């Protein structure tokens, strides 16, 4: 499979408001396979939107190159690139009807009138907006506006589809619905897509590959499963899902397993790549911990808070000097524990994971 | 679309930048009032078929413009304004000589020795007084230069700046030639106390007096008549007993003007009986002996005139004005 998009060592430095330069993107290299959906995920300010805009052409890289296929487009003006963008605020033309919004790109490409008509109408059907052609954007709901934006972007048959946090203006339920539709559409049309978001649920649901970014750099790139189960840094582990982090030191490596000592005991973890003496965080996901009768299980603990969320319950359990987060599907053993209740905790050693620890003193 | 608009704009701009070509058009600066200019110029156009495009400026302004435009003159003729301004113009090199073919003699002091300017009317300096003011204040109209300094007229006099008005400069030059330079400036310093404010144009003081804004104006007799009493204002005219100055109105051809032949035609016309008769409407005294004089207009023999050397006045203009500005502080 060829690469639809390739980024080589992209750097972008801005003149900051305070006066000094701000490095928004600091050496990002990435390869996006044809037909896949890659998500750039990270907190605000991590540079993900800047990367997207450099691909679209709205920002020029300070250093580095952008390729689409084999073609170097780093300095190509945005209107000459074969990328289509769906904006966070949709960017619909308020003075044009839906039909004209969607057909705009075709008119620019001088597609003949009748053909525009056919293609626009069928695209509106495709996104579920049949019959709205004559309305103005201001007359549509948020979800509908989003779909117009999508239709407008798709109709020009771009090589790469770019999404800039398109769902952030929708309410929770709609978000879930629309993102599923986007994914369905993308897979059906097999169109290479790059998606920017700070919402990990979105990233997990939509992506073939997730690229986690932090302070202008890529922390880790991989499939949703890799990112979740085998994060390579604390930041990634923290950002996706929730985790309990227990400070520890590597004592030995044997049989492909790393022996780690923490305050609450020693464990042999399947994560490789460490040497004896390395400082590490032991990662234990909340859903990997099970509840047992007090006195049973590996550790003894006491419940400090219980948060009921309908389908699941979150317990904060004090174990020694630590507080661990435990997620339990409700109802399931230990139904309805309350604050102060003693409880035992169990987990499988195979569900443990290690990430490097850099103490900041 | 943006580009073609820009192009269109530039084409329009360039097209209008080109000077008018062809046709018989004479470009002129006139120092006469707009209203007066419109008495004569249309008649010239009618008589000769030559169209005139003219701008009205005060005499000082005409001189300034001609100097500024010396490298690229915009007009061919300078019409009106006292002769000493035309003398200054000759010195500044912005005019060229032309001797019109006349079947009568123009007096020696009514034209430049080398014919760089030609005189076409005569006018004397007088005082215009608002009769209602005189009645209220219980004073007679001033009859001498010394009279003007009387306390009764304090703050009631109006005259133009000598550096923007030919009229006012003529007054200054007259005083200088009459009393001697230092005494003249001493006199004006005293007079300054009585002056309410200075105007830009030479004849505006007359209207000010007519309106009653001031009690007395110092201006040319023809302006006093046309803008004062003839218009309906309560104005009475008097002359200084010590003697008064006068002006010869001049016309000059502008050096480098595009239409010298048309300009010459205008000069000829301005001295013709027909044209000089038109000046009756403004109470100006024609120089052509065959022309008629308006009733009520003041003739040279009716007023005491000093021996006014217009050429000298022209030569001294720059220097006297500089001194005036620094001594009077205006």
């Amino acid at each position: 499979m060829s690469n639809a998009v390739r980024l080589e060592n992209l750097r972008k430095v801005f003149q900051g408001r305070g006066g000094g330069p701000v490095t928004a993107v600091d050496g990002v290299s990435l390869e996006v396979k044809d037909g896949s959906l890659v998500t750039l995920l990270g907190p605000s300010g991590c540079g993900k939107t800047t990367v997207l805009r450099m691909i679209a052409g709205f920002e020029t890289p300070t250093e580095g190159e952008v390729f689409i296929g084999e073609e170097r487009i780093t300095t190509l003006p945005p209107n000459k690139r074969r990328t289509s963008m769906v904006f966070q605020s949709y960017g619909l033309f308020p003075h044009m009807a839906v039909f004209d919004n969607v057909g705009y790109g075709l008119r620019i490409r001088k597609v003949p009138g009748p053909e525009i008509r056919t293609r626009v109408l069928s695209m509106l059907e495709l996104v579920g907006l049949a019959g709205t052609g004559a309305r103005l954007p201001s007359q549509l709901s948020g979800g509908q506006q989003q779909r117009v934006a999508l239709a407008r972007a798709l109709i020009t048959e771009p090589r790469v589809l770019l999404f800039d946090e398109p769902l952030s203006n929708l309410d929770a339920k709609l978000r879930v619905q629309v993102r599923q539709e986007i994914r369905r559409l993308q897979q059906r049309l097999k169109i290479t897509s790059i998606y920017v978001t700070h919402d990990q649920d979105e990233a997990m649901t939509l992506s073939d590959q997730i690229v986690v970014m932090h302070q202008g750099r890529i922390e880790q790139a991989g499939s949703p499963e890799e990112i979740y189960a085998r994060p390579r840094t604390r930041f990634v582990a923290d950002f996706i899902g929730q985790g309990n982090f227990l400070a520890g030191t590597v004592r030995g490596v044997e049989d492909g397993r790393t022996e780690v000592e923490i305050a609450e005991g020693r464990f042999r973890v399947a994560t490789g790549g460490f040497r004896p003496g390395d400082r590490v965080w032991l990662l234990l996901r909340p859903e990997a911990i099970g509840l047992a009768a007090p006195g049973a299980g590996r550790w003894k603990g006491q419940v400090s808070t219980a948060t009921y969320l309908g389908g699941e319950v979150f317990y904060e359990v004090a174990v020694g000097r630590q507080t661990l987060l435990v997620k339990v599907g409700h109802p399931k053993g230990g139904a309805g524990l309350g604050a102060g209740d003693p409880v035992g905790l169990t987990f499988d050693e195979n569900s443990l994971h290690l990430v490097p620890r850099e103490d900041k003193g | 679309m943006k580009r073609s608009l820009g192009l269109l704009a530039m084409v329009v701009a360039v097209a209008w930048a080109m000077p008018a070509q062809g046709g018989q058009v004479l470009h002129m600066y006139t120092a006469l009032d707009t209203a007066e200019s419109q008495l004569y110029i249309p008649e010239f156009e009618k008589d000769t078929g030559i169209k005139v495009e003219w701008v009205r400026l005060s005499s000082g302004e005409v001189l300034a413009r001609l100097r500024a435009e010396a490298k690229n003159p915009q007009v061919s003729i300078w019409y009106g304004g006292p002769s000493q301004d035309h003398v200054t113009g000759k010195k500044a090199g912005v005019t060229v000589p032309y001797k019109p073919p006349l079947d009568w003699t123009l007096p020696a002091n009514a034209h430049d020795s080398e014919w760089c300017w030609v005189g076409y009317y005569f006018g004397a300096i007088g005082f215009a007084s608002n009769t209602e003011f005189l009645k209220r204040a219980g004073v007679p109209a001033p009859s001498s230069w010394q009279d003007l300094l009387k306390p009764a007229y304090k703050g009631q006099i109006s005259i133009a700046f000598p550096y923007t008005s030919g009229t006012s400069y003529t007054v200054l030059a007259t005083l200088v030639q009459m009393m001697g330079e230092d005494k003249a400036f001493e006199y004006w310093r005293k007079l300054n106390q009585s002056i309410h404010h200075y105007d830009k144009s030479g004849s505006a003081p007359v209207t000010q007096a007519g309106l009653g804004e001031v009690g007395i104006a110092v201006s040319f007799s023809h302006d006093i008549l046309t803008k004062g009493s003839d218009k309906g204002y309560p104005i009475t005219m008097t002359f200084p007993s010590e003697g008064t100055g006068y002006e010869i109105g001049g016309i000059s051809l502008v050096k480098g003007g595009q239409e010298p032949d048309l300009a010459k035609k205008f000069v000829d016309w301005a001295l013709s009986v027909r044209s000089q008769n038109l000046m009756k409407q403004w109470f100006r005294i024609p120089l052509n002996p065959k022309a008629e004089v308006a009733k009520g207009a003041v003739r040279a023999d009716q007023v005491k005139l000093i021996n006014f050397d217009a050429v000298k006045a022209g030569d001294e203009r720059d220097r006297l004005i500089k001194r005036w500005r620094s001594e009077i502080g205006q």
Partner: protein
Amino acid sequence: MAELRKILRDPVLAATIAVIAVSLFLFVVHPLYKVFQMSVVEDGRLSLHVYRDLLGKPFERRPIYNSLILGALVAVAGTAVGYLFAFAIARADVPWKGFFRIVATFPIISPPFVLSLAAILLLGRRGFITRTVFQGWWDPHIYGLRGLVLVETIAFFPTAFLIMLGILQAVDPALEESSLNLGANRWQVFRTVTLPLSVPGLASSLLVVFVESLADFGNPIILSGNFHVLSVQAYLHITGMADFSGGAALAVILLLPTLVAFLLQKYWVSRKSYVTVTGKPSPARLSVVPFTRRLLCGLCLVVAGVIFLLYGTVVFGSFITLWGANYTLTLKHYVSVFQIGGGYLRDTLILAGVATPITGILGMIIAFLVVRKEFVGKGLMDLISMLTFAVPGTVVGIGYILAFNERPLLLTGTAAIIVLLFIFRNVPVGIRAGVAALQQIDKAIEEAATNLGAGTGRTFVTITLPLITPAFFSGLAYSFVRCMTAISAVIFVVSGKWNLITVAILGLVENADLSQAAAFSLVLVAFVLLALGLMQLGVGRVATSQMGVEAGG
């Protein structure tokens, strides 16, 4: 650099930037440089002799003090009156708000010297009020500082009004409400919340009105009497004494405080704004007790009364045969307007008609470049294009006759020089309107168009321009008004072929043909109102809130 390469790949953009840069250099920077050059070069050498000469003479120095004093007084008075109206409308909820708004913005469209004319008619020595009310015993001495303060305050307070109104409307209501909630009485709310938040607006207003007063030419040339001011003196040096270097030096001296004030306002005061631009002004709120409301309403009525009196006098005066002597009513002056003045009117309308659309479009293009595009020298282009607003007309006028008197740019005496003067004097109006409008458009809309394949030109024409149309047309309207009422710069460049009606009116006032001048002035105002009305009909609402921040002749 990558940025430069990107621009060069977009030929329309690159060409536009180049053309505008060249035009700005030729028609803004170059004339100003010529003025400066004229004042410091003597016989081919640099010399400060002219300045030493001027500043050494007390009578040449006095206009400097005079101008500054006048400017300061008018700034304070104008800001006070402007704040009165703004506060009355935005916070005191006075009745007849629409009426007061019209009163507060009307002086903008009248030619500058109409007020001076009115002042003479009413308060001159033989003025109507002087004779009837004061019985001729007290001379108000209207020629000079007093008259100018009165007239300029009325002429320029609309600017202050619009600035202050904008500020007051944009202050978050929650701030004042929470102050009340915490126990402050209304006077305390005003003193501790409203007033401090208005301070940037007050500072802006003081600076802007100060600049307008310094640059004012039309009023002082009629009303200054013995109180000489810089703008008129510079003019008289050049036209009366052919003293170009002296006139240029005075122009440079005039320029300094105006530039300082302008830069202060643009780079310091406007950055200290405490309000966010939300785009929708909040409605008038009632935050005063009824007594205050009545008091403010009364004060506004007094000011409105004065304005009506002044303009009404001009109307009345235009029907008088001979003001001061013969008060029979007549229409002869109006007949005269069309007989004699027909040519002037036609010239002025043609020139304004050509300049205005060009100004509007150029303003929008520059606004678009400045707000949306990045390129080398952008900040400079922004500053220079606003410069002709800061620079007094007198200075610009002198610059134009010095700069365009020789080949290859031989423009003196042509229509082109007048049109160019109009364009570059008024383009800041269009730019400001465009910038304000553009800042309110979601950037994503234009990026979407680009993303879909539209080049810069196409995006501008199909997307940006339609969305900023209201601002565009208000910029057009205001440019047209300024063209029709211009005097201070254009008085230097009129010629035999092209004459402006404002210059003709000035000549009439100088000649004390007051009734005639009044008739001409009213016809001019009528034409301006007609044009504005047509524009409003044709294109919907003209945003008056954007007009008037740049008043002046």
